[in-house]
């Protein structure tokens, strides 16, 4: 057993876990943060993507102990209270989800992608960078639309913030 302590969605948390416990299982089972999903066993599907120290990470690829000392944001921590994050809002507006199972991972990956591309995104880039997130419902059409729309909204609001 190992002790882990980290900050999750702005809250300090700690626990004692079996050494082999993956971060995703620590989040789901120890913290009850069930928005992060497990859709495969081979780190392919991306349903478990969270942010670790500001970067998108498949939480099934790292052990909970490896994340000890890190700051983790999960889908539950993305919105600002009742106000949705622009990526969340865009997924709703553009029907970027159906069954909702891949959605948390998609949104966390998309948020990271937009952050990494302050210059803006085009369809080919979004499609290439979503390669690590599998969706079986939407055919990706509306997910791509939502990510592009969110990227625009976020660069506009950034521009406004700068101008101010």
């Amino acid at each position, binding site marked *: 057993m190992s002790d882990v302590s980290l900050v999750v969605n702005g809250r300090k948390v700690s626990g004692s876990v*079996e050494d*082999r416990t993956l971060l995703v299982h620590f989040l*789901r089972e120890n913290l*009850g*943060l*069930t*928005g*992060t*999903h*497990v*859709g*495969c*066993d*081979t780190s*392919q*599907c991306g*349903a478990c993507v969270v942010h670790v120290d500001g970067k998108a990470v498949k939480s099934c690829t790292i052990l909970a102990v490896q994340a000890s000392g890190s700051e983790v944001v*999960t*889908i*539950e921590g*993305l*919105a600002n209270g009742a106000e*949705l994050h622009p990526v*969340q809002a865009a*997924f*709703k*507006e553009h*029907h970027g*989800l*159906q*069954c*909702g*199972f*891949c*959605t*948390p991972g998609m*949104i966390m990956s998309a948020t990271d992608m937009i952050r990494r591309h302050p210059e803006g995104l085009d*369809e*080919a880039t*979004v*499609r*290439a960078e*979503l*390669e690590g*997130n*599998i*969706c*079986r*419902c*939407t*055919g*990706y*059409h*509306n*997910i*791509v*639309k939502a990510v592009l729309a969110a990227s625009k909204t976020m660069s506009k609001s950034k521009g406004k913030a700068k101008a101010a």
Partner: protein
Amino acid sequence: MGIEGIGARVARKEDRRFITGAGRYVDDMVVPGMKHAAFVRSPHAHAEIKKIDVKKAKAMPGVIDVLLGKELKTDGIGNLICGWMIHSKDGTPMKMGAWSPLAVDRVRYVGDAVAIVVAETKSQARDAAEAVEITYKELKSVTEAVDALKKGAPQIHPEADGNLIYDWEIGDAKATDAAIAKAAHVTKMHIVNNRLVPNAMEPRAALGHYDKAEDHYTCWTTSQNPHVARLVMSAFYNVAPENKLRVIAPDVGGGFGSKIYIYPEEIVCLWASKKTGVPVKWVADRTESFLTDAHGRDHVTEVQMAFDKDNKITALKVDTIANFGAYMSLFSSAVPTYLYATLLSGQYVIPAIHANVRAVYTNTAPVDAYRGAGRPEATYLLERTVETAARELGVSPADLRRKNFITTFPYQTPVIMCYDAGDYAASLDAAMKAADYAGFAKRKAAAAKKGKLRGIGMSNYIEACGIAPSAAVGSLGAGVGLWESAEVRVNGVGTIEVLTGSHSHGQGHETTFAQLVADRFGVPIDSVSIVHGDTDKVQMGMGTYGSRSGAVGMSAIVKALDKVEKKAKKIAAHLMEADEGDIVIENGVAKVAGTDKNVPWFQVALAAYTAHNLPAGMEPGLKEGAFYDPSNFTFPAGCYICEVEVDPETGVTEIVQFVAADDFGNIINPMIVEGQVHGGIAQGVGQALLEGASYDGASGQLVTASYMDYAMPRADDLPSFQVSTSNTPCPSNPLGIKGCGEAGAIGSPPAVMNAITDAIGNNDLTMPATPQKVWAAVRAAKKH
């Protein structure tokens, strides 16, 4: 329609919980005292179980119990069954082999469940599962249906001699043969429809909880039809009587057919909960899903299509062998018969049709309905054959189709179905225009300059949805009726709950069903809640599959709304001292037509529940239920056009444009309909280009059992799609809806394959058209 009524592009009500991580799937459920299960599964495709030793496993840390099939039998739990009786052409009933939820003396495919381990944690359960020692005597196995029919093939079930489950036919063999004999041209093809794994992103899961105090079971399960699960587990598997069994399908992460069926795991978890005295949860990992979820398709077909000298189709002859896997799954028998062969007329006038279908056991995962179920197989063989015929006859594929279209309705096909409405030329025209079909030659020439081979292909599909008239399917062998139920409860202050037997696992029912109510009474959709997926809340239902929830599920809601409206009008008329016939309800108000007299909706509801001032003799309350049994199937149809560029050096196919023109009848929410088409096309393109379940013939091992090996379509494998709809309303249901859930998966594979074979000039290509196969086909074409 109003801003939230029928036809409005309303954003989904259910989205908020999913985008904030608040969705609740089976794996998210926690029950006090809950423990975890792992299944011990056969590593062999075919073997006798000689001995099972659980001593070591039982002594492992955290292990509560290890349970076996023998104990399950002793407790009277029944075998799994197929619920649709098919008779062979000689009149004998299908030959169903026994499927024990836990194998007792023989395993028949890799993944067959043998034992369940219950432990404190999931990891402990898995560790102990590995410590269960089973001695097997391996037997020869067979994975291909064609091989399983050969003499000397291993016998899989004693009940099915030569592995043949049934040998079934439909249509007129004599007339078909006669027409072929005197045809001006006959196109012959060997068609393989590849085996697919549905791959809903949420793996299957079950949580069984036996409550000793109440002698009552609760099962949370990833189901598309919790009521059917309860019925089957009670009536056939002897788990518990219906009044002692509650089945809950909460948020379910996609189904595509694979979550219709009742699998061994939910039965065993319920039984194990009683045996061990603790709630038992099992969640499949992805490899378990690949191994044990019901697969789809897997047909091998010989087809002949006959033409007269005017290029009119005169006959179609089909001989299909369908792989059923190791056991007959719940609806497996219906898929290659009544969901397949009854659609073999396609959109065409074909005077004579005959189809023969042989269903066969193999040592592979059970095969059942997967998005489209039978209709993609029918469409693929027809549309590949028509396109091939056009090439052989030297005519345009569009013209050949147009010449043979059915244009008058109702149209009785020679294979049971009676099409009620459609305009196939309208969809063809719309698709050709959207795809700029006329400009293709120029684009092809431009591509050639870049060294690319450009091709275009089309597919004109028809499907039968809105399943189904209960008496009709009953006469064809179905063990259940396929109606739907609904209850509309107006609360005392006018908010509304709609209870439905349909189940949403991505389809957006919480929004579209609420739109029906908003449309009827002019109340905001936020005041309407849709309740589904729980047998304790909703009395009965048949669930969601076969694109039936709009045409059948919503029609039941309409019937219940009719009754509610009638009573509400009576109450409003009484309150305003007006004539019932003069009352209209709109914009949340009941008013006397042509006057300014009105009563707000909430006051009508309140009056119903205070019951202080109701018409004489009227019962208090405002709540009505209805069952709707469709009078016919519905017939969505459309035209898909795919344009590809193939790189002859690498064999890589790029889809450069994909156009869908569908006729779904009336539409409740176009945004959701478009989403269904997108998703369907992605699965169809997946089948055509990427996906294929592959068993090693010698060992019977599934070699595509993870996302490392099975090519799921990713975002960069697909283009954006151009979708549009036209509308010939369905005459057989009150909303004029046809259904849209499966069209994309049905119509797209032949369009893709027609495009690639057009590009490379070689028609000898099977799905999935991987770069390797396409590259080889390009080279083969060059040699000729």
